[in-house]
């Protein structure tokens, strides 16, 4: 495909290849260890499970390429999920058509989510505060707002349609997986084939060079955080639809860690400047398979975090060796 980029991509391609090899190896090991692993239903389940953080990880990929980080994604997911359902419940009596109410609530959720991301972006670019600090702050803020509007409990939707679409499948593929793949395809093209993607890598490699090259660095960064807010919104709506409810204290917990882990395992370096969208998807699936495998083998759920941690450290170690 992109012949002009292939030079700078050669290394990515290799890295992408490496995470793909890891995925295939893992697949083989899992299917040997457990006869149930390869059953279609199990594979689809894994994909569905990883899709929620996978979608978030797509935005995280962009943020990390820009040289930043977003810790607030889990809290924003809970906040947006709660806002979306509360809006829906308020709209239902006002709007006669349930379908219309659901659509409006979803639009409102996506808009709020994008605004949350934009707030991060503004504070980081205009406020000139380090991304880690800003998003650490907004992580606390949005979680607390979510708890506040949901009275620290569960927010249930009064609509059946809302609880339905997230569970549907398109040609066997669960809707969230479908959405994840479409977003990944769009963002892969954005990263590799558009001016924005090129500028994003430039900003992440060297801010000074980017500034002198007439790139509006603040705008590029702002858009990366806003995009992340948007995809967090998508994920929050799909997840809240799955249960037709949002648990304001639990939803999105540790999502930021899973998303960052998927990006890193996929081969995008923490230092930014380059990255791969499909690698992130592979990274997310690798995490999902490991979880699934450990469950099937009856490993204590308390130990699963240890394995996940080792995989993350191992992935970065391998990248470091190659650099």
């Amino acid at each position, binding site marked *: 495909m992109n012949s*002009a*980029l292939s030079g700078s991509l050669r290394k990515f391609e290799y890295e992408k290849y490496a995470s793909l090899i890891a995925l295939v190896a893992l697949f083989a090991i899992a299917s040997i260890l457990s006869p149930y692993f390869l059953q279609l239903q199990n594979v689809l389940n894994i994909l569905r499970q990883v899709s929620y953080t996978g979608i978030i990880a797509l935005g995280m990929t962009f943020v990390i390429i820009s040289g930043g980080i977003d810790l607030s994604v889990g809290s924003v997911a809970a906040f947006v999920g709660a806002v979306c359902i509360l809006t829906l419940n308020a709209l239902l009596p006002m709007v006669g058509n349930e379908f219309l109410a659901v659509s409006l609530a979803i639009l409102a959720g996506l808009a709020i989510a994008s605004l949350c991301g934009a707030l991060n972006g503004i504070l980081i670019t205009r406020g000139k505060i380090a991304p880690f600090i800003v998003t650490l702050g907004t992580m606390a803020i949005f979680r607390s707002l979510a708890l506040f509007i949901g009275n620290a409990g569960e927010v249930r939707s009064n609509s059946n349609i809302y609880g339905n679409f997230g569970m549907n499948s398109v040609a066997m593929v669960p809707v969230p997986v479908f959405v994840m793949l479409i977003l990944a395809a769009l963002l892969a093209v954005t990263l590799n*084939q*558009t001016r924005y993607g*090129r500028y994003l*890598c430039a900003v992440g490699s*060297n801010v000074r060079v980017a500034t*002198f090259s*007439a790139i*509006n660095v603040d705008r590029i960064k702002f858009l990366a955080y806003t995009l992340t807010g948007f995809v967090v919104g998508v994920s929050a709506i799909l997840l809240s639809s799955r249960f037709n409810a949002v648990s304001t204290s639990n939803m999105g917990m540790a999502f930021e860690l899973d998303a960052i882990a998927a990006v890193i395992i996929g081969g995008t370096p923490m230092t930014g400047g380059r990255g791969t969208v499909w690698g992130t998807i592979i990274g997310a699936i690798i995490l999902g398979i490991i979880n699934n495998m450990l469950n099937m083998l009856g490993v204590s759920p308390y130990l699963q975090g240890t394995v996940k941690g080792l995989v993350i450290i191992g992935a970065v170690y391998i990248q470091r060796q190659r650099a």
Partner: protein
Amino acid sequence: MNDVLLKIDGISKEFSTVPVLKHIDLEVIRGEVLGIVGENGAGKSTLMKIVSGIYTPTTGRLVFEGKPVEIREPLDAMQVGISLIPQEFNLVNDLAVYENVFLGRELRLRSGLLDKKRMMERTRTLLEELEVDIKPDERIERLSTAQKQMVEISKAVSMDAKLLIMDEPTTVLTQYEIDILYRLMRRLKSQGVTIIYISHKLKEVKAICDRVMVLRDGEVICLEPTGALSEVEIAQRMVGRELSQVFPPKGVPGDERVLEVRNLTVPGVLEDINLDIKRGEILGLAGLVGAGRTEVAEAIMGVRPHTTGEILLNGKKLDIRSPQDAVESGINYLSEDRQGSGILTGFSVTNNISLVSLKRYCRYFVNLIKNGDEKAAAEAHRDRFNIKTQSLDTRLEFLSGGNQQKVSLAKSIDPDPVVLLADEPTRGVDVSAKQEIYRFIKSLSDKGLSCLFISSEQEEIVGMCHRVIVMKEGRIMGSLSGDEINEAEIMFLATGVRETNGAPAPVH
């Protein structure tokens, strides 16, 4: 019989099967200053990186003071007494001078805490011995480039280096500072230190070196006493062909003023800068390091906060708040700090060249990049600038300094600017690449480009510019034109010996 300090015995080096050094033999004699010259990519830096342990050779060995030595990492080199002063300094900006000098081998009190007093004292003595006027507790970031280099040298001397390797030490220095460096080198030599001096500047090699070795394409072309060869002879051995005149003949600029800068002021940095450049004119901006030349370019580009004054392009007042505004108006900047603000080493040749002008290679509202067009433009620049690279997809970190500079130049002219602010356009570039760059700039100016030519090398200011403005401490000390332009006049103004006028440069 000569006392051989270092014997390089059949050293070869390949990078992924590409030979960079081909069986190099060399004996470095104790107490000499040996010059190594060669074009970019000839293998000078690679050879020195092998000697100082940054690279390991593919074949061959090193013999130091009669004993074969294995130098696998910089620490090994340091222990036998070999010290490299790299082109890019290895100093920690946030630390003080004495902390840098003792970095990694700090003196301690019996309690285990740092003995700051003793380190400071030792550094003070060291700096005094070398007659360097720097305070030991000054932070590195407050030092000028030349001073940083002095600190690097002091650091090397403090480690009792027997062999000091200087990789193009003068590229960032002005003539005045170079003279200080020479005095320092002579003093070191009298103390028995052996120096290998890598440079592009043949005049310097003639001035300071006892012997000179010419490298070309990874082979030793000749090794002679410096007195036996003229500059021209050395240059010819470097390029392997006859050299024509270095500077192209000056063109005739137009009459209309393209860029006018009025009362440009950045508090504490620049004071009341006035200048104008006519169509097709090359205006020189000379001065010592720290005179504020780069700052003028940065202020015009809109990256200096609190800038006041007016900038007019073709008589129209511009409101430049960022490099974007400047580039959109047609003003482009070629940075002096190639790796810091010029190019992206992780990007390919193509992607670097198109970085500023990317908009023109995009289509649809989503700005999809037209790879074919982008590549075609990069190919055109590669041929035009004679950029040597394995492919256009090669990342810039794998190109030699001179070729990186050509990419940087290609990048800044790809948007077809009206005005080019060229800041040290030939820094760290060899003779023939320099010549090529001079010709590019000249041919661009023939086509109507107005160029602000900032340089620390007075020779090229004299050789290239129609008029020259000389700065000192953020102010314009005077301007020269026509026959007045010579190195002595520039030096008088730059050092403040003479001041013609503080007024705008005369317009003819």
